[in-house]
């Protein structure tokens, strides 16, 4: 075991997989020489060579498009989009090809690539550097979408993403890149994609969160406890395929559900979870599902960002509201 933050844990997963599997390459803007603007790939070029870890020209579309070509040819590219807000030039490649190649060719050609992208707000950044648009990808048939909330999960989930036979959008909550440190095994291990985790059991309300919001929800759960409310906290870990069973089983027990997510409310992950608990646990429901999510607005620039972000207090406010229904 070694104490790691999320940056180190992801670096470690890449390092170990690069060592193990020669078909893996890692590239993107500033990924090679500099080791990434967040230093996630630091030292990997020196260790594994410039033909395996390298800088690409500035063009998201061909970063992902070329990864599709490599993957079809049997390689395992792990590419980085510098910020999720800059993935849009590559949207066509992700939606039209990355997600579809297997289906289009009836399984003859597949695209087992990983697209890593830091996402989310709370770092006082310029426009386009703070958004949480995981719903785009969750809504795209053919993609898997994974979001870790801790260093331990980041390493294990990234290993699974690299080993996955399907393309994975791996979104990294940059706000907590360095904020959480914990013991992480030094060897390779994996955490299955598509399985949520019950972070802490409870009896009154199920709170579903992921990414940086897990930590906020944990703090809210502690506040709720003082109010006599017992929260069962679930970390989704995977946005798609959703672990419907874990959520439904929990809500059957608690009778209430709240989803905490940074992105816009409408058509978001919260909406999908609301639907699935209605489908799966309708008769157990004591209150309507609650979405504790971003406004249907852009993420404001830093001076206004606090209005937009979820806080433990805001989560508590909505938990109490649901309890009082």
């Amino acid at each position: 075991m070694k104490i790691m933050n999320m940056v180190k844990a992801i670096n470690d997963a890449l390092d170990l997989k690069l060592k193990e599997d020669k078909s893996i390459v890692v590239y993107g803007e500033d990924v090679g020489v500099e080791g990434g603007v967040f230093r996630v790939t630091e030292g990997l070029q020196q260790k594994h060579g410039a033909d395996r870890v390298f800088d690409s020209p500035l063009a998201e579309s061909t970063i992902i498009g070329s990864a599709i070509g490599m993957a079809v040819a049997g390689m395992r590219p792990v590419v980085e989009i510098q910020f999720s807000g800059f993935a849009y030039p590559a949207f066509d490649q992700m939606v039209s090809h990355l997600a579809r190649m297997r289906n289009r060719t009836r399984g003859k050609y597949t695209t087992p690539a990983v697209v890593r992208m830091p996402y989310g707000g709370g770092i006082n950044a310029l426009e386009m550097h703070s958004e949480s648009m995981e719903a785009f990808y969750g809504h795209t048939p053919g993609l898997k979408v994974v979001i870790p909330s801790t260093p331990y999960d980041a390493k294990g989930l990234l290993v699974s993403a690299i080993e996955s036979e399907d393309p994975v959008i791996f979104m990294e909550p940059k706000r907590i890149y360095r904020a959480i440190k914990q013991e992480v095994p030094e060897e390779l291990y994996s955490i299955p994609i598509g399985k949520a985790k019950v972070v802490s059991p409870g009896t009154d309300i199920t709170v579903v969160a992921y990414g940086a919001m897990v930590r906020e929800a944990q703090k809210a759960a502690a506040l709720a406890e003082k109010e006599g409310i017992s929260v069962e906290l679930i970390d989704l870990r995977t946005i798609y395929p959703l672990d419907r069973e874990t959520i439904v089983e929990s809500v059957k027990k608690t009778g209430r559900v709240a989803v905490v997510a940074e992105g816009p409310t409408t058509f978001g992950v919260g909406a999908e979870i609301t639907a699935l608990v209605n489908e799966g646990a309708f008769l157990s429901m004591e209150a309507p599902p609650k979405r504790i999510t971003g406004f249907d607005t852009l993420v404001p620039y830093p001076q206004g960002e606090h209005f937009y972000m979820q806080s433990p207090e805001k989560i508590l406010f909505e938990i109490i509201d649901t309890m009082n229904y």
Partner: protein
Amino acid sequence: MFDVYHPTKKELFQIMDNEGKVINKEWFPKIDDSTLLKAYKELVFARAADLMIVSYQRQGRIYTYPPGYGQEAVSEAVAVQMKKEDWVVPAFRELPLYLAKGASLKDVFKFYMGDEKGAGWSNAKNMLPISVPIATQLPHAVGLGYSLKYNKKDNVVYAFVGDGGTSTGDFHEAMNFAAVWKVPVVFIVQNNQFAISVPFETQTGTDTIAIKSVAYGMPGLRVDGNDFFAMYKAIEQASEHARSGKGAVLIEAVTYRRGAHTTSDDPYKYRTKEEEELWEKKDPVKRLKAYLITNKLWTEEEDDRHIKACKKEVDKLFIETEQELSYELDEVFDHLYSELPDDLEKQKARYKAFLEWKAKRK
């Protein structure tokens, strides 16, 4: 001129050397002394502002900022000769141009202090906002150019991008459209040698950016972007070409980002002090100053006085901006649609209810 300095010759268009001595009389621009002094003073002002913003950032008074230090002459060459109704389509390192277009330094401060109110350039006419997603602004320049042509205006669009931005599909598509539609757009690539840590050679397989113009079918010119006179002449010729209905031009301004990529970047991960020193010798402000002093248009004393005055003015504007800074909940919502949809009205009301609850709880 575009034939004489045809991109296939791979020449760098220059007028003065590093000491400010004129080495190319033939193409020396017609520019009167007062315009020249105005340009120099604006250059110095922009530089002072730029350096001070970096120091405000270090003091925690402003967020991440991308300095234009060392590249100022490129924008200034446009700033002193553009017409009022010309359009400017910025990337994000064109400070002297924003100010010349009528933006206030306060807009720039607000933008980088994290307030949208700075993004729209309160008083500037015909200038798009800073473009955060690289190169995505270039297709807009084509559309603006089309509207000028359609409305039979003799104005032009000055569109900026970095060397990194030339790798994008949007760059290629915009060049191609501009050439096909023959729109009055002057594309200016600030080739400052790096896209964050990625050097020019990793960005393109060509020796120059200017050469790409040949394939698109428009004139191109590779210019010493740190040579104010060369930049001035290049922009003059390109503007004339565009204004007279002959279509777009691609200018590659060869320059150097003397500062960090942004205040969160450490350049020594990817370049050396020696390289920086080499480019210090080619600094645009230093070179123009040397020219002015040699030609008895300016003195060291005047320079000192001007720099001091600039710093004072910048600081005054910055402190005023700090005092004026405000941000209301409404601003998150009110500019997204022509009319606020009910859904958003409800979300705003819900947030207010939360704030009331929070206030009571304390």
